[in-house]
């Protein structure tokens, strides 16, 4: 990505934008897959595990076969495999989804760590080639740095963002989408319409697995070209959070993922600064104020959310005060790194309107139990 930053407010410049997009991608892939799965009624706590498996196998196959393309395929296959285990246990055997998901995570951590030790344990860390950028002709030369920030990335990134709209279309414009949405709300309606609930649910879980695996590949063979143990570092869990904050809707999930990715990019940019630039506080205040105003207009329409208004109002006020005072804050490194996430979550919590969780999320379906 180009490092020439010309437009922006303080740290929020085009370089930040480019980094935010890159960091959004793995979370977004997993979250879009998980969105489908949750709409059919299956919660994948094992999302992190699918990603980790995807990351490892993409790296391993790329190294072994010396082919990035095969590496990407391997990541999807690994995610699908773990998801198939999940589906087998929860959809077929009706095991508890949360317990199974935790098991999948532990299994993925164990397996990838073991294999990594066995295969690479006593070798120097090998860096494999990474998936290169694909600059989109025309668009990538938009002036002001925006062109290269937005349109000079690897194809997996484009795929991730395009998948949001593809999934939106599938959910709301196809018969398959009707079945998916119905399967998480009233599976009996799917069943009596002559559609197999199991099949729909299998497809949902596999979507989560395959897309998370690809997200893992994005981490390993796009961003760095290496694998290290537990390198997903909680991104699978962030994806789960993003689905909730995105209110189980594709565009909402995109927004939530971008908030998290943007926060991560901010954290990286600020890592070696000793003071938070006042622009950060100003932008935070601006967003929070916008949310507060939005919620107030909704109140007029008879949908009061006083807590959200109070919350976003308070954040806006804090932002203004901090921007004005611009205090020197010495934070422990770990806290520093988690701060953007916390702020992103506060902002998202304020922006939430009516959350509608799929009614039958985590519940197995059996005929004759209404």
């Amino acid at each position: 990505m180009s490092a020439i930053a010309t437009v922006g407010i303080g740290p929020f410049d085009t370089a930040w934008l480019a980094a935010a997009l890159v960091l959004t991608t793995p979370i977004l892939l997993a979250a879009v897959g998980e969105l489908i799965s949750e709409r059919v009624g299956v919660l994948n706590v094992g999302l992190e595990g699918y990603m980790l498996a995807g990351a490892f196998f993409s790296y391993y196959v790329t190294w072994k076969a010396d082919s990035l393309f095969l590496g990407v395929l391997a990541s999807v296959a690994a995610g699908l495999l773990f998801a198939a285990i999940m589906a087998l246990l929860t959809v077929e055997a009706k095991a508890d989804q949360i317990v199974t998901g935790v098991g999948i995570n532990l299994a993925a951590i164990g397996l990838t760590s073991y294999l990594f030790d066995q295969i690479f344990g006593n070798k120097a860390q090998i860096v494999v080639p990474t998936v290169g950028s694909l600059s989109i002709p025309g668009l990538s030369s938009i002036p002001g740095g925006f062109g290269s920030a937005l349109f000079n990335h690897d194809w997996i990134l484009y795929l991730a963002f395009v998948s949001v709209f593809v999934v939106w279309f599938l959910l709301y414009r196809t018969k398959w989408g009707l079945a998916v949405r119905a399967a998480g709300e009233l599976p009996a309606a799917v069943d009596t319409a002559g559609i197999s609930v199991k099949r729909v649910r299998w497809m949902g879980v596999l979507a989560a697995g395959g897309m998370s695996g690809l997200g893992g590949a994005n981490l390993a063979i796009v961003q760095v070209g290496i694998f290290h143990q537990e390198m997903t570092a909680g991104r699978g869990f962030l994806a789960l959070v993003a689905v909730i904050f995105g209110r189980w809707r594709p565009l909402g999930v995109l927004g939530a993922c971008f908030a998290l990715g943007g926060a991560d990019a901010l954290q990286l940019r600020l890592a070696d600064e000793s003071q938070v630039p006042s622009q950060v506080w100003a932008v935070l205040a601006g967003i929070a104020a916008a949310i507060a105003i939005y919620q107030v207009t909704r109140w007029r329409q008879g949908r009061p959310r006083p807590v959200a208004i109070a919350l976003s109002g308070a954040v806006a006020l804090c932002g203004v005060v901090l921007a004005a005072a611009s205090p020197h804050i010495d934070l422990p490194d770990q806290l520093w790194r988690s701060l953007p996430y916390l702020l992103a979550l506060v902002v998202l919590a304020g922006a939430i309107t009516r959350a509608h969780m799929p009614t039958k999320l985590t519940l197995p379906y059996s005929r004759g139990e209404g």
Partner: protein
Amino acid sequence: MEPSRVQPETAGAALHPEGGAALRLTGITKRFPGVLANDAVSLDVRKGEILGLLGENGAGKSTLMNIVYGLYKPDGGEIEVNGSTVDISSPQQALELGIGMVHQHFMLVPDMTVAENIALAPSLLPGLSRVKDVERDVGEISRRFRLDVDPGAVVEDLTVGARQRVEIVKLLYRGADLLILDEPTAALTPTEWHELSRFLRSMADDGRSIIFITHKLDELFGLVDRCTVLRDGRVVDTVNIADTDKPSLAKMMVGRTVTLRVERPIVEPGKPVLEVKGLSVADEDGRRMLDDIAFQVRAGEVFGVAGVAGNGQDELVQALLGLVTTDSGEIWLHGERIDDCSPQVFTAAGGAIVPEDRHHEGIALELSVLDNLLMKEYQSPRYSKRGVIDFNASRKHADELIRHYQVRTAGVSLPARQLSGGNQQKLVLARELSRDPRLVIAFQPTRGLDVGAIEFVYGQLNERKKEGTAILLISYELDEIFTMADRFAVMVGGRFLEVLEGGQADPERVGLLMGGAEDGAP
């Protein structure tokens, strides 16, 4: 898909057309853990015939039809469709054989539109849903059969009656030849019922076969050709409807002679318990759902609200409970003003509610019988100390309630889901009536119940009445109002047209009032 091939005007076909069997069941047996739901059941439906399937709750009617629809696998027996033996192992196969079923519980996804629900069908992966086309077809069907259905409406905004119509339109849309309707009339108004029966007759005259499941005897006469009676999973008999009468059918169904009449106890009413003055409520779009409603319910009195579904009954109940904000008016319960408060205030002032939809508002299906019984009393010091539930006291109380209200359950720790509909309703009654309420709102309290359970509900409500409780009975069933109410109002378009004395009103005039005739004159 071709919406339908029905000509509603083809009347006058022979009542018993000479057709082969569209469906023949031989020796169907189905066993659930601990229950023999169907015991060697045999029946047949001829082409162009309406067959009634009569039986009390738990007789095995739904189980039998779910087998025909491919939802359950029978343990034994044979199914023939149009003369050839078939193996129906999934609903998809049933649909392919032209079998369509309206299930007892709505198979409608609440947050999808009517058209989206109807468009739900098996298809190859990327097929477009074409909801717009479906909307057009559904609009066409609903106009043609005068089934008032808005294809663009979201199902959760629809009344129970409207959802029922959607289910029927769905069946028509799928173009089935054998129609199974599992207790489709539970929430229909007299007018809607009339429309439905006429419509079913025209479908049969057109050569389709219909299985009409019910436990209401009245519905069979004038609709079905023959009737198969099920009791405890076995066929008691199949009779021509012309050769039988109500008492003998009732006897076959319950295995004893039943009196359907309930005596209305005469109680001298006391002071007003519930007073509603000039109550008006508008919905989100500003439409008036309740318009200047005023009435009193006195102690020891059953005050009825008659009317067709969707004329403001839901809003009235919500306003009384404090679930909607009122535009004007006052609600007083036992000297306390409760409008724009909350269900907690309503309950604390001595109010109890038997809601219309027991699955969503009456009980928590996944919770145990015990939890359901004590839900509103856990905070009381009798059943909990410093926030910790006293299980011995709770259990004892629950056991007592189960005995007194004759709830049939294998234990108090069973989830309420496993109880039959009648027993679930008894659970609601037990919880609501046992708290010595000053006012009971009974909203469609016998919806979907069999004769025995209806008698029981009426008996319990009359018991409360004799104890001096004020009872507000809101019902779409005119019979229920006539049986129970001391006084009643006719509700149309959010207004009370007239308040009538229970004993003296003329049912025909009330029917006309309900239909919207201002003065009840034809």
